[in-house]
């Protein structure tokens, strides 16, 4: 039986962006409210970069151009604005309003810093936190921006590690979780990894108001080349993290771990064939709190693995070329690929001609 919703999705899929161009502002707003809405950075087939708001059927509802490659998008539900960060070692972030009210605002990183590609808003939408590189001192920083004053930079505090990547705000609205990937880079040398033999990744919890370090966790010394990079919070409040192994490919360390502030921190076991399929690289981690599931993606292994958060059971493993972006949708996940495909929670695959999708997909509505 076909529900009206599915009919509409089919319509959107067939119509693509052109359909929306013809919608009035009000009709567009209604469409956006009814459907799940996602945000991602992309590259167009002509080589240009941008960020888009997508419907769950893969239609581009809104897009902005970017001067260079973007990375993650974070959303503030209060002002309904999104921020897309430049990919490391980029020096811009772009604030945009897909509902059309406000002109985009560009945030430039200050001298001596660049962005790492991730950020998060405070719950009230007033402050924006971004991971940044104090590259001359090889020190991770969190830059704090005032969203109520044109994103003026207010202050910064250290992440107590090198090469911070993703950061999240935990359920208390006050604790930031930061994945310090441990890899030193300097913009003089592009994306070259400068300290692989001595890197020491960590996962830290920081009080966003005081900037104080609450907890700092490291894996055992023999896993010092396992870079902790992406995270998601499950419904119990546990922080799941995904890693990328910088050591030899002949080693196959566990790549997914879980931390509970004040309680525990460690990697979790996975069946060897599932772990092998990730090829030492987790590109994105997402949680579906309603369904009690975590998804980890590997564009290196062309694999999407879904894990039940309660028992750690592997729910499914999908093979999909260059899958990386993943965000909760319905009882599962919507996933995007570097080949321009979108995989729905029920397994339907949509191919896009115009775009290839960047590493991250965010659920914004």
């Amino acid at each position, binding site marked *: 039986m076909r529900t009206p919703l599915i009919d509409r999705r089919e319509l959107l899929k067939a119509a693509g962006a052109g359909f929306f161009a013809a919608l009035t502002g009000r009709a567009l707003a209604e469409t956006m409210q009814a459907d799940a809405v996602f945000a991602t950075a992309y*590259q167009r087939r002509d080589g240009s970069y941008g960020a888009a708001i997508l419907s769950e059927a893969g239609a581009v509802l809104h897009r902005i151009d970017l001067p260079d490659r973007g*990375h993650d998008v974070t959303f503030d539900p209060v002002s309904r604005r999104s921020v897309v960060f430049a*990919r*490391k070692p980029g020096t811009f972030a772009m604030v945009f309003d897909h509902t059309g009210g406000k002109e985009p605002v560009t945030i430039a990183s200050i001298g001596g810093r660049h962005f*790492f*590609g991730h950020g998060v808003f405070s719950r009230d939408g007033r402050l924006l936190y971004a991971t940044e590189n104090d590259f001359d001192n090889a020190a991770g920083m969190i830059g704090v921006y005032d969203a109520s004053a044109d994103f003026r930079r207010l202050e910064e505090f250290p992440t107590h590690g090198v090469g911070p*990547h993703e950061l999240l705000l935990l359920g208390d609205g006050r604790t930031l979780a930061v994945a310090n990937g441990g890899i030193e880079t*300097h913009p*003089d*040398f*592009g*994306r*070259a990894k*400068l300290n*692989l*033999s*001595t890197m020491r990744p960590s996962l830290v919890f920081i009080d966003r108001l005081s900037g104080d370090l609450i907890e700092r966790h490291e894996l055992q010394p023999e896993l010092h080349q396992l870079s902790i*990079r992406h995270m998601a919070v499950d419904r119990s409040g546990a922080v799941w993290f995904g890693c990328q192994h910088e*050591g*030899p*490919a*002949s080693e*196959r360390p566990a790549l997914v771990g879980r931390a509970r502030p004040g309680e525990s921190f460690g990697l979790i076991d996975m069946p060897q064939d599932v772990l*092998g*399929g990730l*090829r030492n*690289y987790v*590109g994105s981690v997402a949680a579906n709190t309603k369904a009690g599931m975590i998804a980890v993606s590997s*564009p*290196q292994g*062309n694999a999407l693995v879904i894990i039940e958060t309660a028992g750690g059971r592997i729910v499914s493993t999908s093979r999909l*070329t*260059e899958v*990386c972006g993943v965000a909760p949708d319905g009882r599962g996940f919507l996933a995007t*690929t*570097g*080949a321009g495909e979108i995989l729905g929670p029920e397994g339907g695959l949509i191919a896009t001609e115009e775009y*290839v*999708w*960047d*590493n991250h997909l965010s659920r914004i509505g």
Partner: protein
Amino acid sequence: MRSLLLFLIAMAIAFASPARAENQVIAAAVSGFVKPAYGAFQTASAELSDDMDALCAEPSPDRLAAAREAFASLVTAWSEAEIIRFGPVMEENRLERILFWPDRKSTGLKQVQRALAEKDATATDPATLKSKSVAMQGLGALEFILFGTGSERLAEPGEDYRCAYGRAIVSNVQGIASAVVAGWQDPAGISAQWANPGADNPLFRTDEEAVTELFDIFIHGLEMVRDVRINGFLGEEADGDRPKQAIFWRSGATTGSITANLRGMRKLFEASQLAGLLPPDSAWIADSIGFEFDNAESALEAADGPVAEILADAARRGKLAYARLVTSSLSELFGVRLAGALGLTAGFSSLDGD
């Protein structure tokens, strides 16, 4: 759909043997480039070892000159081989132990100078040197020994410690080279794994994964040459130049090393016979790749010399800037044109993502 995969399947049938057929492209890349490149590196390290022995036994200006020349040959051999960034060279931090660069905070330099000042006995014994800082045991440290402040005194008696430390570094590099060569020669090792993808292969499950690994060498190698090796010292404009951030600036081997990086990629491209897989209407891609490798090489040759001199001479500096531009063209040819024609995704997210 994917012409390369179809081709590989056809090859597998054509070469059908009792066992599963090898991936011919990978097998050719290994036998025609990887093994010879590491073999040349091993040989060059042995030759420098002999020259260092001779220098330390009886110092003379000629023997110092011979050792310095052998160092330059070793740098060339390494620079051709270093584009390979997987397999045995990734074990035990070998890549960083052979060459820790860039050394942004001059950590290695300070450690080497301290060892020289204190005559640290653990640095002159290869057995103990290999567990010291990676920055103390490879080509960067050796370059300072042979070309840095005070190196001219190696031409006369009395620099026993400095010479012995240099010998220990060469011995250490030689040992690493031998281990990497042995790793690629191991019949059950990386060579077999790379050329024989399959469900039970721990590293490569499919032909596409194996061929993507080959492609990554070009994509990453070109990015390294441009973003790290050239942009590391060549500014957009001359006022942004930083000559002392150039690789091997002390020995004057900067452009030689960069030229050898590109020559390694060219040799690998030719050895793997990737061009032979292109359909006739895409044959121009291989021609363009050859043409651009020629352009880069002649520009770098025209610029050749000590970095400070090149940067001070607008014409030669321009040659370097042109070579940088050519690497961008090569990145496009490999990453977009060749990958597209062979039905490989260009690796938008999978190549060194975040």
